[in-house]
């Protein structure tokens, strides 16, 4: 079977990105009180951090297509779960 052929990513660069984003995340709730921009910013930063961990620490960037498909599957299913919860959540939002 084929062996590992990719170079090591710059792990310390990923570490500094993760640390910087974590510091920003901790600051956001005190700096931004409006809920919608706060949630968008926080979720955006969390997804960025999770992507960095998956792509570089878990080496997903260098994996074959099959592994990428396996890794994407739960995201699609969780997205579907959220979609299915939307009618209930929207109804509660509308009716207060």
């Amino acid at each position: 079977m084929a062996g590992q052929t990719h170079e090591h990513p710059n792990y310390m660069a990923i570490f500094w990105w993760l640390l910087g984003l974590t510091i920003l995340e901790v600051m956001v709730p005190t700096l931004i009180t409006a809920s919608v921009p706060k949630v968008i910013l926080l979720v955006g930063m969390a997804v960025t951090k999770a992507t960095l961990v998956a792509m570089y620490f878990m080496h997903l960037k260098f994996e074959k297509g099959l592994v990428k498909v396996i890794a994407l599957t739960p995201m699609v299913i969780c997205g579907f779960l959220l979609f299915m919860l939307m009618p209930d959540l929207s109804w509660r939002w509308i009716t207060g």
Partner: protein
Amino acid sequence: MSQVATAGYAAVDKYETPLTPDSWGKLGMWVFLAGDAMSFGALLATYGAIRFGAANWPNPTETLGIMLTAVMTFLLICSSVTMVKSLAAMQEGDRQGCIKFLAMTIAGGVIFLGLQAFEWSHLIGEGMKLAENAFIIDASGSVVGHYHEGLELAAGQMRASSLFGTTFFMTTGFHGLHVFSGVIYLTVILLKVMRGDYSPEDPNGIEIVGLYWHFVDLVWILVFTFVYLV
């Protein structure tokens, strides 16, 4: 190796396709992690749905306190770095370096668990339980007092949702269980490395435990954001 076994390997190589993974063990771990990710996805989606529908949800950033959990997040990020350094050390033939970085990763996990136990003890002491809590909140969600039998609530005050503790303890507890399992798994791999298992040509077991550990870090990034910050 027997002839049957050799023939088996030859057959695998013959039918290797672009989809054949570099390591079947790694593929197995990815499949396990995909299933586990769905468990966490369901927990977080449930948390979101419950919280969105509750008018009496305490402000988590104020109620739970985020400085300690920010330190815990930092610890897990550091332990992910030591984990990849451990794998890189073995790939470069540096067994002692691999042992050193694996031990540091385990230490990160143990300290994380200790801090989580401290946090849970503190919150339980504040009156937060699995099925109820003593928090009294105002309209903004800030905790303004603790409920006790016979207390009259002032105008604009309400008791916090009993599900606040349920979702918190279930989600962080499920993750903590993963960290605990990870520490045991890492310790087993560390002992194997010390025994002389694995080599620069075959560091597969270290890479597989690394996948698990990075997944635990990845999930904490999401739990920290959704449960503590949003």
